C-alpha cells in the first residue's frame, strides 16, 4: 500500500509520464504479488519439450466474458494452494475444471474449489491440463489424461516437501473434468521405475476420486456430445469410445468414489453417474453418491443455494471417513 500511496503522490508532481510508467510497473508488481498469495506455487508439468505437442503460435486466453474460462492452453501446469500448516490433514486433492474439453472453467471449478479445500485442511492443486486440439497436439485424445497422470506424479513426488501423505492424494473433477478424473481413476499406472525422469517413477493412481456432475460415458445414448466431439472428433472408432467410457473401465483397484449430480441436469444427463455407480458397485468399490433433486449443471460450490451447496459438507464427511 505504501508503494501505491507513493505513486499517487508522484502523480501530483510534474513528471506525469514517468509517474504513469512507475504506476504501471508497480501495479503489475502488486497484481503478481496478489497472484502469489492466491496460490502458493505454480509448477509446469513438463520441463523441456512438451510431449505430444505441435509447434504453434496459439496463446492461452482467459475469457472473463464467458464463464471466466481458459482456452488455448499450450503449457500445462499445476497451481498449488496450501492449507494453514496447523490445520493440515495430510490430504491433497487435484482439481480438474470442466468446460466440455473445449474451455476450462478455471475459477468456478478450479480456484474456488481450491480455496474451499484449503479451509478444511486439504492441499489443493488446480490442474491446468491441455485441451484436445488437432492444431496443438499429435494425438489429441491422449493429451488430457497424459497431463492428469503427470500432475498426479508431480504431487506425489513433492509429498514430503508439502506435508502430504502420499497415500492420501485424490482427484476431483467437474463435468468434462469429471470425465478426466474418472479416466485417471480407471487408466492409471503405478509408475515406470526405469525411466530417466524420476517423476515418472511415481504412481499416477489417485487414492480417491470425487466426480461432480461428470461426463462418464462416451456412448451415443448417454454422452455429452460436445465433450466427445472435442476429445475424439466426429465418428470415433468404437475402441476409443470404449476406452474413454469410464463405466466400462472400472477395475478392482479403481479408488473409492464420491459422486454428485442433479436430477435436472440438462447438459450432462444423470444417467452418466448412475452408470458409473453401478459399475463401481459391481467391482465392490465403496462409493457415495448424492443425486440432488435440483441444481442443474455447472453449479460449482453452489454458494447461493444451501441445498445444492451442501454437497461440499457431504464431501468433507466422506473424506474424513476414508482411512
Amino acid at each position, binding site marked *: 500500500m505504501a508503494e501505491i500511496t507513493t505513486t499517487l503522490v508522484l502523480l501530483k508532481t510534474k513528471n506525469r509520464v514517468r509517474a504513469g510508467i512507475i504506476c504501471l510497473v508497480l501495479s503489475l508488481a502488486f497484481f503478481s504479488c496478489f497472484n502469489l498469495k492466491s496460490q502458493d506455487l505454480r509448477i509446469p508439468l513438463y520441463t523441456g519439450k512438451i510431449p505430444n505437442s505441435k509447434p504453434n503460435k496459439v496463446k492461452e486466453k482467459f475469457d472473463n466474458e464467458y464463464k471466466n474460462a481458459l482456452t488455448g492452453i499450450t503449457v500445462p501446469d499445476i497451481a498449488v494452494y496450501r492449507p494453514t500448516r496447523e490445520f493440515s490433514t495430510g490430504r491433497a486433492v487435484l482439481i480438474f475444471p470442466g468446460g466440455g474439453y473445449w474451455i476450462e472453467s478455471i475459477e468456478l471449478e478450479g480456484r474456488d474449489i481450491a480455496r474451499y479445500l484449503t479451509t478444511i485442511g486439504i492441499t489443493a492443486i488446480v490442474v491446468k491440463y491441455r485441451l484436445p486440439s488437432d492444431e496443438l497436439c499429435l494425438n489429441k485424445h491422449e493429451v488430457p489424461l497424459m497431463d492428469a497422470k503427470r500432475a498426479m506424479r508431480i504431487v506425489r513426488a513433492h509429498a514430503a516437501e508439502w506435508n502430504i501423505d502420499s497415500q492420501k492424494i485424490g482427484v476431483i473433477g467437474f463435468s468434462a473434468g469429471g470425465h478426466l478424473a474418472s479416466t485417471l481413476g480407471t487408466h492409471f499406472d503405478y509408475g515406470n521405475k526405469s525411466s530417466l525422469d524420476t517423476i515418472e517413477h511415481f504412481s499416477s493412481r489417485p487414492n480417491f476420486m470425487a466426480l461432480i456432475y461428470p461426463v462418464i460415458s462416451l456412448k451415443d445414448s448417454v454422452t455429452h456430445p460436445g465433450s466427445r466431439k472435442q476429445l475424439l472428433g466426429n465418428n470415433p472408432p468404437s475402441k476409443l469410445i470404449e476406452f474413454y467410457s469410464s463405466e466400462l473401465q472400472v477395475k478392482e483397484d479403481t479408488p473409492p468414489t464420491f459422486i454428485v449430480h442433479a436430477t435436472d441436469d440438462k447438459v450432462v444427463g444423470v444417467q452418466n453417474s448412475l452408470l458409473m455407480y453401478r459399475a463401481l*458397485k459391481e467391482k465392490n468399490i465403496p462409493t*457415495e453418491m448424492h443425486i440432488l433433486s435440483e441444481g442443474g449443471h455447472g453449479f460449482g460450490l453452489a454458494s447461493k443455494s444451501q441445498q445444492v451447496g451442501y454437497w461440499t459438507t457431504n464431501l468433507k*464427511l466422506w473424506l474424513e471417513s476414508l482411512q
Partner: protein
Amino acid sequence: MYEGKIPNSKPSEVKEELVHGEHTWLFGVTNPTISVYLPQSKYATGQAIIICPGGGYRLLSYDNHIEGTDVARYFNSLGIAAIVLKYRLPLNETSTEPYNAPLMDAQRAMRIVRKHSSKWNVNPNEIGIMGFSAGGHLAASLGTHFDHGNPLSQDSIEHESSRPSFMILMYPVISFSRPSLASNSRKNLLAGAESDTLLKFFSCELQVNEKTPPAFITHAEDDKVVSVEHSLLMYEALCNANIAAELHILPVGGHGFGLINKNQHIASWKYNLELWLKSLQH
C-alpha cells in the same frame, strides 16, 4: 383409525405383543393407530410427515431412535408435525386380504391427517409419508396407489385424498419383480397369494407415473438386508417420469441406520433431508 368394525379384518386370537431386547419389536398388530406429535404452533412450518416403521411386514420395529418418538421429536424441532403409524401386519388369521391391510391403513392415516390439518396447523398439501425398509415399501406403495377420496362416502374422512405430498424412502424395499431382489417383505406381504398381478402391483418402480409425488431416497451401499438396487430402480423410475427425486447413497451404514446416529458420516443424510424438506416448503 376406523370407526366400528375394522375393514378387511376378521376375529382372531392374535394379540399385539411388544418385545424388548436389543431392539424393540411389535408383533401381531391388529388394531392400527396413529400417534401424533405436533411442534409448537408458533414454529409450525405446515409440513407433516407420517412415519411407517419397518420390520419386513412381520413385525414393527419400534426403536425410538430409528422410527419412533425420538424421530418424531426431531421433526417437531424442525417445525414439522410427525405422525407415527402403527399399521396392521399382513396375517391370514386376522385379515381377509392380508396383503391389502398395511396399504389400507396408510391410506386411511393420510386421510385422517388431512382431515385434521387445520386443527393441527398442517397444510393439507404438505403432508408426506416416510418409511423405513418394509415401511419404505409401504410409503412407496401409498405414493403409487392413492386416490383423491370418495365424496359420496358417509364417513367424512373418506372424502379426503390419500395422496402423499412427498415421500421419504429410507433403505426401502421397492421391487417384488426380480428374483435377485427377493425379500422377506415380499414373502410376508404376499404369503400364499403371490400372483403376477400382485407382484406387479406391489413393485413400486413399475407403478410410478406422472402423478407420483416427489421423493427423497437414502440407502447404504453395504446394506445386506435390502439391496441398494431397490433404491436405484425407484430413482430411475421417478426420473423417467420427470418426478423431482433425490437419492443419497452412503458407502457404509448397513441396514436400519435410522435417523439418529453417533457416526457423523452416516447421520449426514439427515441434513440433506432437512434441506430438501425446506426446498419443498411454500
